[in-house]
């Protein structure tokens, strides 16, 4: 579920989110009603489905929703589809708009997992990223969430211009001291059209090199694994998130809200991007702006593209179904970029993780 609001837009962010000023006539306090409208719509589209195994409320800044609003959307999902007993219900939150009291309220209405956008513990780095919070806010909030019995995760960003290996190392230490169940660490992507991209283009800010990025990644991998957080996808460590895994395993998922993407049985479709257009399209009948039906070949290609990112890898047979010459796969195994597990699966090695996109392109370019 996409909550498309933010107090301010961060300099590196190109997500589909809007500040109060940019929202036009859309009201934050009643926005959940539209999401509920789309839940009803999705029920009409997909009909009977197994109970939901995961709900993820992301954004934007979902912690700008009140506990009441969250309760209302969860209730509608429960009524229409039913939530499985062990359903993972995650809320994304940022430190500046979250308090221990708020956490108590959302735990009561059914949030079982908290994913906090920490990004860094270096205030210089946070400033470059335009993040508003003070790093000291994080630890008490994570402690409170754990106290309430929630699973916890944090997001980190590395490779921010000006960030040194030393600063990243300190961020990792502080992050691990929190004792969360899960960590995501993303290398900063400079998206075209963002303030950061302009600053880099003008030379105001330098860009982190591919090599430094790679070193930071390798450093993170070592730290997480030493702390007992096992790697399971390019940028994810710890107890695998049900939600994230669904994407890579090409399971069925419905994305609610403006610009949200869905995948149901080999169909990928996406909603209108701006909240106003989305609202209008939804009230006119359907929120979707586009749809594509994947071909059998595309389904297999996606499988390779997504699963090769993960610790689960792909079944050996997938390569032959995609007509990838076995010599090519063998060569990557011999060079230590891929590894064979239990004779019938293939996955990327530690070394291959960082070049998996190139490997996939190579396999599929013949």
């Amino acid at each position, binding site marked *: 579920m996409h909550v498309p609001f933010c107090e301010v837009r961060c300099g590196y962010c190109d997500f589909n989110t809007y500040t109060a000023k940019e929202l036009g006539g859309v009201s934050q306090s009643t926005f959940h009603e539209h999401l509920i409208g789309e839940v009803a719509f999705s029920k009409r589209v997909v009909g009977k489905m197994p109970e939901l195994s995961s709900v993820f409320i992301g954004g934007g800044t979902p912690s700008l929703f009140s506990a009441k609003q969250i309760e209302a959307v969860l209730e509608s999902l429960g009524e229409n589809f039913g939530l499985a007993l062990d359903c993972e219900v995650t809320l994304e939150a940022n430190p500046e708009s979250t308090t221990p009291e708020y956490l108590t309220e959302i735990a009561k209405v059914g949030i079982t997992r908290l994913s906090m956008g920490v990004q860094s513990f270096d205030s210089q780095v946070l400033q470059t990223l335009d993040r508003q919070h003070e790093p000291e806010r994080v630890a008490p909030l994570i402690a409170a969430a754990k106290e309430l019995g929630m699973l916890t995760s944090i997001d980190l960003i590395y490779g921010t211009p000006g960030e040194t290996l030393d600063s990243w190392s300190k961020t990792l230490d502080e992050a691990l001291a929190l004792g969360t169940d899960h960590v995501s660490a*993303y*290398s900063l*992507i400079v998206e075209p059209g963002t303030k950061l991209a302009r600053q880099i283009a003008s030379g105001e800010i330098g860009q982190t090199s*591919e*090599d430094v*990025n*790679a070193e930071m*990644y390798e450093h993170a991998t070592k730290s997480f694994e030493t702390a007992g957080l096992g790697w399971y996808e*390019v*940028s994810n460590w710890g107890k695998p998130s049900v939600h*994230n895994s669904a*994407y*890579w395993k090409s399971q069925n998922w419905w*994305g609610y809200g403006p*610009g*949200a*993407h869905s*995948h149901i049985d080999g169909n*990928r479709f*996406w909603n209108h991007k701006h909240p106003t257009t989305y609202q209008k399209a939804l009230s006119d009948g359907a929120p979707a702006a586009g749809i*594509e039906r994947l071909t059998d070949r*595309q389904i297999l*290609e*996606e499988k390779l*593209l*997504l699963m090769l*990112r993960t610790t689960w890898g792909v079944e050996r047979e997938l390569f032959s179904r995609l007509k990838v010459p076995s010599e090519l796969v063998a060569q990557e195994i011999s*060079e230590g*970029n891929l590894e064979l597990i239990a004779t019938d699966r293939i996955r990327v090695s530690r070394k291959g*993780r*960082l*070049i*998996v*996109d*190139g490997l*996939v*392109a*190579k396999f*599929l*370019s013949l």
Partner: protein
Amino acid sequence: MSPRAAKALEPSQTPADLIRNFCIIAHIDHGKSTLADRMLQLTGIVSDREMRAQYLDRMDIERERGITIKSQAVRLPWELEGQAYALNMIDTPGHVDFTYEVSRSLAACEGAVLLVDAAQGIEAQTLANLYLALENDLEIIPVLNKIDLPAAQPEKFAEELANLIGGDPDDCLRVSGKTGAGVAELMDLIVKRVPAPTGDSDAPARAMIFDSVYDSYRGVVTYVRMIDGSLKPRENIQMMSTRAVHELLEIGVISPEPVATKGLGVGEVGYLITGVKDVRQSKVGDTVTTKSKPASAPLKGYAEPKPMVFSGIYPIDGSDYPDLREALDKLRLSDASLVYEPETSAALGFGFRCGFLGLLHLEIITERLEREFGLALIATSPSVVYYVRKDDGTELVVTNPSEYPDGKIAEVEEPMVKATILAPKDYVGTIMELCQTKRGTMMDMQYLGEDRVQIRYRLPLAEIVFDFFDQLKSKTQGYASLDYEDDGFNVGDLVRVDLLLQGERVDAFSAIVHKDKAYAHGVRIAGKLRELIPRQQFEVPIQAAVGARVIARETIRAIRKDVLAKCYGGDITRKRKLLEKQKEGKKRMKMVGRVEVPQEAFIAALSSDDSKAAKK
């Protein structure tokens, strides 16, 4: 001011004294095709509704690049003082590579419109073409074009033209191909000034072939100018050089689409179709006569163009080789100047060594091969022909740098050109400096007007095919223009510089350069390749070497990280689309050993970046 001819004269029945054959000669971009468009419209043979820009330029590439490659002949009706005339406009290409096409078009005319951009003045190509026109005894009508431009200086350039060809600056007609101003006056002037063709209508037929093009539906279409006698449909015609006899299936004029006629008479210009499939059977410069009443002597022909620039053309995907061969065979049907023979490269596999008239010709051919035949190609850096005499007395002709022998060379001769450069006088120093670094020797220099200078240099052709023109343009802010012609051979002190990837020589990157420039060349190419070749999964050392001596070294470090950090929700669709693009990109990469080398590297590596530095 004359109206459109009320009644057009019928081909084959038109007396020679009512015919005017003319061409337009101009520097590239001086607006020749636009002026031709206005003439077509004004004479009513193309309706305003059908008009499209550069009507006569048939190939996509011609229209896109705004240049005319193939000449065309169009019959235009015109009326002056109550008398109808038939005007044949013979379009000529305006680029230095196609000089030979200009000269054969000129031979079909009695007059030439010398078209000069009123904002630019006379350029080197204008002079070259004017020279050819004078050699052909053509009546010259000086015309200033683009007088609608705010920057036009018609007085200044009329003066310049008058200085050049004599006469009064006021006699120089001022037109605008864009607005049509002055075009009708120009048509009148052509009728008045261009001499009518002369020829013996009772003599045996003699027609001069001035162009020959291949049409996929009709076979070869041959453009001719009747000199003596006449030709009629269904007649058996004979090519005087080969004695080959063909039946004349169709004869006609272009107006501006082909129109079959009852024949062609003395002085007329039109086309012949005989059903032959290869332009070489209908050779430009040959004389056409009839089998029943053959002429005794052929007309004076033209010198056949010789290829000046060579490049190896290879399919990126080796399995496209047969398609490439077929495509070249097809192109040769319409372009007799294209020559090629099979060649093998250790790095690139099977391909063809092709000979071209110049760099533009090379570019156009490779572009047509890619576009019209859907091939992905690599063209190796252009080279010229070298005559090598080894110590043991054996001689060989080298058109491919990788065949240049190692050591034991007594003497090498390389082709030279005589280059004419026109530029404002402020740039003389810069131009001389450039020509010196390109191993040039100055021949002479003269002022054309107050501020324009003509400089002539003798230069090795190899220096010109490299990137001389680009550098000349950038160092003179685009003001200089260049024309050149063959000027024999000179002995040169040359060596072969090789490029090695992972220790293996890549023959496609070998180049023959002057001994004193070998080091700079090696350093530059190695540096360029480091930038152009993407990081691979392993480290790639690059070396430049002369013989066994390594003169430059660079390293492409192994790739460390290419993975996209986030792949959720909508990222998946984006990622798949990105993958499609990557797949396309990979198709444009050539595997050299284990190294993926992008197509651009093969040409771009050889262009110098001095020109870019000069712009800064």
